[in-house]
């Protein structure tokens, strides 16, 4: 990614920022879609991520690559949105149906039916850790930091996700 483009965007050049958007939207959307398993929500989170990136561009100092900085910021946006969503769900789910909190969403339309579909059907906590660890390559320590869960919980969710995926793919 040309440094000049990033510098221009940092100086408030929206045309330069649009170029950055065009270059990264596919990756950001893929990340949002896999983390949320919901096409409409993924579009919303993608927009949120780019708005947040624009607001925080001045804090990007090139210590990591721009793409790493942007994808980490995207993960944060999705997880923050998920926490807010979970709080809303907890307010409306009755005590007779606590399992609804972990009930997987319907697989997102447009995803391949094999691994992508199976990942989309995972319970949210297991899906997030699987996507971050096995698809995006984050370490458990980083996932713990990003999600606010313990390293041990991150591992447990990953192993659970892999078990559920193997069962789904072997059916």
């Amino acid at each position, binding site marked *: 990614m040309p440094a000049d483009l990033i510098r221009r965007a940092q100086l408030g050049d929206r045309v330069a920022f*649009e170029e950055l958007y065009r270059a990264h939207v596919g990756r950001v*959307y893929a990340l949002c879609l896999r983390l949320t398993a919901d096409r409409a929500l*993924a579009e919303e989170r993608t927009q949120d991520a780019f708005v947040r990136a624009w607001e925080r561009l001045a804090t990007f100092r090139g210590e990591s690559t721009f793409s790493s900085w942007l994808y980490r910021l995207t993960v944060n946006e999705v997880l923050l949105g998920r926490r807010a969503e979970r709080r809303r769900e907890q307010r409306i789910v009755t005590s007779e149906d606590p399992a609804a909190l972990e009930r997987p969403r319907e697989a997102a339309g447009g995803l391949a039916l094999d691994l992508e579909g199976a990942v989309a059907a995972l319970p949210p906590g297991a899906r997030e850790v699987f996507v971050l660890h096995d698809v995006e390559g984050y370490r458990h320590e980083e996932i713990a930091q990003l999600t606010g869960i313990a390293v041990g919980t991150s591992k447990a969710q990953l192993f659970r996700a892999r078990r559920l995926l193997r069962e789904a793919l072997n059916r």
Partner: protein
Amino acid sequence: MMCPHMEAALNEYVDGTLTARDRVSVEAHLADCAACRAAVAELRSLAAAAASLPTTIEPGRDLWGAIEPRIAQRATWNFQRLRRRAALAAAAVLVVALGVYRLLPTSTVHYRPAGWAAVEADFDRASDDLSRTLATERDRLRPETVALLERNLAVIDAAIAESRAALARDPGNAELHRLFTAAARQKVELLRWAARAAAS
């Protein structure tokens, strides 16, 4: 189906995160357990498939049309927040200045309005020089004055930092230049007053 008690160990084995001793132990188990060997093969295959998923998926519609107006709106919101911060800083300076003013002989207080270049020069030079002077003379100020001074310098510094960040995004914005100038001038004047108060 793998041995249930081996789930964590086999996952860590595949991830390469086991200690050498645990790895040897798992390999000994694998030598005798076909089910766990099959599970390891599946876990490896799953990890490889996950890592080779497409890195990009294009959204079904162009999202820039929704992002662009939000960015423009956010720029306005930031500007309003900045203006409130500048007003707060100005009020803080007034409080400190009045406090310091009472410590000074009347003849030593001079207010000299300065233009952009003078303020900029003041800010570069005076911010360093006066801070240094104040650091050596601060013992002569009352502790409560020093505490108030530091608190309000922090407010002004935050306003200056926000102005600079906004200017970095929108360097041609005349209002932002005025806000930066006001904040810089406030800091210089506050430091100047405080240094004089300490020296008198």
